[in-house]
């Protein structure tokens, strides 16, 4: 095959891969393939190259492959080791990408997916979306969600509030009325109302008796700290729950900017939501929206309002309760709630 004919075949093959050939050109390519061994070899090598480019791209290695010195080897026997060494050096590529890289790891990942009953529906699967969302949720970035809580299907008395969350357990909750504020600064839980002190504790459950008297919405903190329902305050918590207790499916969505994952509870648990739906950004994995439905009809809807970097002090009561008396509840888990003692200090200068 001379150079010009080869060029023409290459153009036809690439045009075919791009879907730009006319019917006549497709027929020309088919005829050429049926009559020329060289054309067949050319198609095969183009197909292999295309497959590799998509595989490298899927795993996020094209950019890496091109940015640093080559890790390729001329020794085919070392081919199996080429990509793993590249992976190790790309620390920003995380677990999911690592798993998909080597044939052995990919094998393990495949089997894991199958065993998990998380079936693939497209090139993107629910497990992958979940993993990416977990990674995004774990980042130390502040995200403010608007939360709407509907007690049950028949009730119209929905409550709405804003929650700002950051990795490491930090959160800050305030309703639109600013009637109260609840937070966790990464070490202590705290809450306050308009004309009350700031109550601070390292163990929320020790706070519960006081909340009963002082905080009508005490269930918020119960939800926040309950091991059975770590749902309200932490998107990462929702995602972890999905991973451990739910069957997740990727929902075919017309929205190209987000993935929609629908998760159903594997076995009945009264305190857990029966279904969780979340929508995460295709590029970043950040959860844009989440919707939880409980067996009693209670619903919680989260919607991302803002992703802005906030100061570390944002999650501390000092930021939201300036001048208020601080009452720290010293806890001793062995003594239980009835043996709480209160130590008062003050934020007043």
């Amino acid at each position, binding site marked *: 095959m001379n150079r010009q004919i080869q060029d023409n075949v290459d153009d036809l093959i690439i045009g075919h891969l791009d879907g730009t050939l006319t019917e006549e050109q497709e027929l020309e390519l088919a005829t050429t393939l049926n009559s020329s061994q060289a054309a067949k070899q050319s198609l095969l090598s183009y*197909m292999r190259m295309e*497959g590799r480019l998509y595989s490298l791209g899927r795993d996020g290695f*094209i950019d890496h492959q091109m940015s640093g010195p080559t890790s390729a080897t001329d020794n085919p026997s070392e081919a199996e080791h080429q990509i793993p060494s590249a992976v190790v050096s790309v620390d920003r590529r995380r677990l999911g990408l690592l798993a998909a890289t080597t044939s052995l790891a990919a094998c393990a990942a495949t089997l894991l997916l199958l065993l998990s009953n998380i079936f693939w529906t497209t090139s993107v699967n629910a497990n992958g979306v979940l993993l990416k969302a977990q990674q995004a949720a774990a980042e130390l970035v502040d995200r403010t969600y608007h939360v709407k809580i509907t007690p049950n299907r028949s009730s119209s008395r929905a409550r709405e509030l804003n929650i700002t969350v950051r990795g490491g357990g930090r959160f800050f909750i305030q309703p639109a009325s600013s009637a109260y504020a609840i937070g966790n600064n990464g070490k202590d839980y705290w809450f306050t109302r308009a004309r009350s002190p700031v109550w601070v504790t390292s163990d929320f459950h020790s706070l519960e008796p006081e909340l009963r008297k002082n905080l009508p919405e005490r269930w918020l903190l119960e939800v926040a700290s309950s091991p059975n329902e770590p749902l309200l305050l932490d998107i990462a918590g929702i995602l972890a729950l999905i991973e451990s207790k739910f069957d997740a499916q990727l929902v075919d969505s017309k929205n190209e900017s987000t993935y929609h994952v629908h998760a159903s509870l594997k076995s009945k648990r009264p305190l857990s939501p029966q279904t969780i739906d979340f929508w995460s950004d295709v590029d970043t994995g950040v959860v844009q929206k989440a919707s939880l439905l409980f067996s009693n009809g209670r619903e919680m809807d989260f919607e991302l309002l803002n992703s802005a970097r906030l100061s570390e002090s944002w999650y501390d009561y000092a930021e939201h309760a300036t001048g208020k008396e601080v009452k720290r509840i010293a806890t001793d888990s062995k003594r239980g709630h009835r043996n709480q003692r209160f130590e008062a200090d003050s934020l007043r200068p």
Partner: protein
Amino acid sequence: MSEVPHIQQYLQLRNDFMGYLYAITRDVELSEEIYQNAAVVVIEKKNDPEKIRNFRAWAKEVVRRQALHALNARQTATRHARIISPELLDAVSDTFINDSSDESEANHEFNALGKCLNELPKAKRKLITLRYEKNITFTEISERIGSTPAAVQRSLSRIRKLLHGCIQKRIKVMEGTS
């Protein structure tokens, strides 16, 4: 090779299969779906006492059948009214099924591709990244870089020819030195 679990052998052939699947579907998501459906067949084969003499050939046939099934299903969808012509589909599938190249050849190409990618100028690398890593259309790429879809397609066409030529040259050099 025969002692290696089928699924592992199958995964090692991923690039070959994905290349073929993309060539006949021109849809990377559908290609992945077919590839994964075929993986299930491979895994289920474990329970079948019938011995597979040539795993690669058998897996190719599984992939081809899964692909044809998926294409038939897709043909009914209006959004994919224009699909590959039957003559070309047969020609591509026959080429794939009757491919007698061995795995070392594929490994040579794989290694060469890595080096050839590294040699690409920055602008060309950017286009390849957008197309294959970001998996976005020519139109979307053109919007990002301030060009037209046709110009992007032409550029990517040239880049792939460049990469392909680079791979072939490197393989020839390797064959000459081995």
